[in-house]
């Protein structure tokens, strides 16, 4: 008898998880890339298409790679947090304008302010693909040797900046 009820029981347990999942923040998922070298690329910067950026330039420094786009609503929530954080000059922040029109990206930064030390234009999402971007915005902490140490899916909030990112950055910078 029991074995015939089992499917029902399993399903009801699943339903509870699915219900919990509905209220869940799906965005904060670490990547399998953590602990691995940040994928190498070379792409034009947003403001000067002639200039190329490659993560190699950042070797020796701890830095943030922040993936955003002008069409991304959650990025608008994140933007003031990044503006504030960048004014503290803790570390360089490199933006990746993901699957976006160049003009739209420039326009957004002109209007809302530019928290980035450099912005890369990733119009066809190549970098996003290599980095396994799940949803925009995403933020990566990359250490002095070019290893990805942390990945945040979804907007950086003042809380996780204070509780997660800042301690990690301090630790990495001390090395």
């Amino acid at each position, binding site marked *: *008898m029991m074995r*015939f*009820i089992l*499917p*029902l029981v399993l*399903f*009801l347990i*699943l*339903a509870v*998880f*699915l*219900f*919990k*999942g*509905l*209220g*869940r923040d*799906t*965005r*904060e*998922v*670490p*990547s*399998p890339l953590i602990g691995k070298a940040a994928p190498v690329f070379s*792409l*034009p910067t947003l403001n000067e*298409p*002639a*200039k*190329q950026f490659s993560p190699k330039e950042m070797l020796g420094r701890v830095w943030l790679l922040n993936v955003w786009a002008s069409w991304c609503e959650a990025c608008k929530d994140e933007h003031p947090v990044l503006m504030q954080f960048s004014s503290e000059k803790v570390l360089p922040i490199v933006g990746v304008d993901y*699957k976006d*029109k160049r003009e*739209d990206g420039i326009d957004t930064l002109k209007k809302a302010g530019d928290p980035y030390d450099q912005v890369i234009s990733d*119009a*066809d999402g*190549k970098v996003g*693909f290599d980095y*396994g971007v*799940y*949803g925009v915005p995403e933020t990566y902490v990359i250490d002095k040797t070019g290893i990805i140490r942390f990945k945040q*899916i979804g907007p950086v909030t003042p809380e996780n900046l204070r509780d997660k990112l800042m301690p990690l950055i301090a630790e990495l910078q001390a090395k």
Partner: protein
Amino acid sequence: MIPELGHFSLIIALFLAMSLGVLPILGAARNSRVLMGVARPLAYGQFVFIALAFGVLAHAFLSNDFSVLYVAQHSNSQLPGQYRFAAIWGGHEGSLLLWALLLSVWAASVATFSRHLPEEMVARVLGVMGLIEAGFLLFMLLTSNPFTRLLPAAADGADLNPLLQDPGLVIHPPMLYMGYVGFSVAYAFAISALLGGKLDATWARWSRPWTTVAWVFMTIGIALGSGWAYYELGWGGWWFWDPVENASFMPWLLGTALIHSLAVTEKRGAFKSWTVLLAIGAFSLSLLGTFLVRSGVLTSVHSFASDPKRGIFILGFLVVVIGASLLLFAWRAPKVGLGGKFDMLSRESLLLSNNVLLSVASASVFVGTLYPLFMDALGYGKLSVGAPYFQAVFVPLMVPMVFMMGLGPLARWKKMAVPDLASRVRWGFASALVIALLLPFLMGKFLSQESSKWSPLIALGLLMSFWIIASLIISLKQRLSGEGDLAQRLRRQSMSFYGMQMAHLGVAVFIIGVTLVKGYETERDVRMNVGDTIVAGGYEFRFNGVTQVPGPNYVAGEGNVTVHRDGRLVAELHPEKRVYNVSGMPLTEASIQPGLFRDLYVSLGEPIPESEGAWAVRIYIKPFVDWIWAGCLMMALGGVLAISDRRYRIHQKATARASAEPIVSNLQGQAS
């Protein structure tokens, strides 16, 4: 005015569906012919009104009626006509309407092609389908009405997502949905068998062709989606283990198990409750797939619009439908007999192992897809599961399954002696092994690669394919030995036998494609100036620059790449980089020269700044990649052959006679 007519039709369809869900089932329980008799007219009625609503939405799209919000969001006056039509299912609301329409098509087909079935069976099956239809219509009317007005009307629409402006995407969703929805028929048969308490072989026989048809559609749908990803995303990949892909793959795996299990239930009367559970499971996974895609519980590169309120509704619907079916199962299934006995080694046992492996494979995809959600809900933090997990669990499951797939058709029902089976297959297995070990050494030369590459995974893949092919030859030989001339003997075999062999051959072809493309593909990501050449895999690619070409609703940078081999022109490729006028979204359109043994695949990356027309260019040579989809189509063709089997009609007449006699069982007593 016309869009309101569509809205109104949906409301009428909802009432018809609710009546269909209640009256005939009640009639079957009370043995009332009048109530059972309304099932067919109601099924036709709901189809007519949903079709009307669909027609109204189609009209709104084709006539650019941007006062309809959904049209304004998903279309544009510049959009070519065929995509304006396909845009109907380019978003959430329209996809649901397509779902509902196809479900009513299936219900109407069941109503039409079920003359030979007992009245109460038809009443219950259509009733169950009516209940599902009512749930979807209610969902649409409450949370996702495609006819909502936008006042004042938009001057022009926001355009269809450029990724969806593609011939593949015109037919991929309808095919896939036909499969998803088609499993509702097997489900409805299983539920009505449980309701009626007659869980014998007959329900399996009746639902078998329907299940196969649904499976064929689903196979084609998934293959089309995969083919689309291959040429449209510009990365040359054909499967990404994305949650939305997995959502279609899970019911396919379970559906595959179901069509095999149904065969055993029909022929041997075994696995009765297991088959019912699979039928419930396959459709439940279809519904779950809809939930995953539509609720936004999982993030995905497909990223359709999602809304938590809709999620709550679908989840509630899931709990009612699946929960009630499993409750019914828990209540009724224990009283079902075990059916025919069979030995440790027999066709039944091989099919059972195949069933278990397919179900476990489906479960492992399920776990991989939902693992992040489970871990998060339990507070173990956030995780993501990628292709490495799926490959790691999938290969070990598929290897024994393929091995048994070769044995299954050779084994006898009920009982088979190990030495007998072994002596029949040993030469086949030995030749497959030799080919698998040696072929990789020749492959490198055949594909003009610098060095021959031998790897255990390539050999394993080839062994599996050639094992299937060898067992197929043995099986044919076994069947065709005997009296008469060959043509006669060929004709004597049933279509379903050929269908099975065709589908299994499809699996072999599929595995060859997967193995060889993975083992021998050449990928070059290079910067090319105008006039540059690059040699890859024996081909010389010359980049002749990019020119601007206007399209109907986009501007394309069209590259020109000529490919030479041994000084002879073999292909001229035109990869495009499009920018769509309205959304400004860029899109990579790869250019492919397909071939039996290799695809030449070129796509454009980015223009190199500060250069004279130089671009980043991706050049791929994909050996045997088309075999992947050819294999899928052969599987689907196998299904088509199986349905065309003459024996179904004969059987159907026989069962109609058999079931006309009263069958007394203690279950029936309890049911009434």
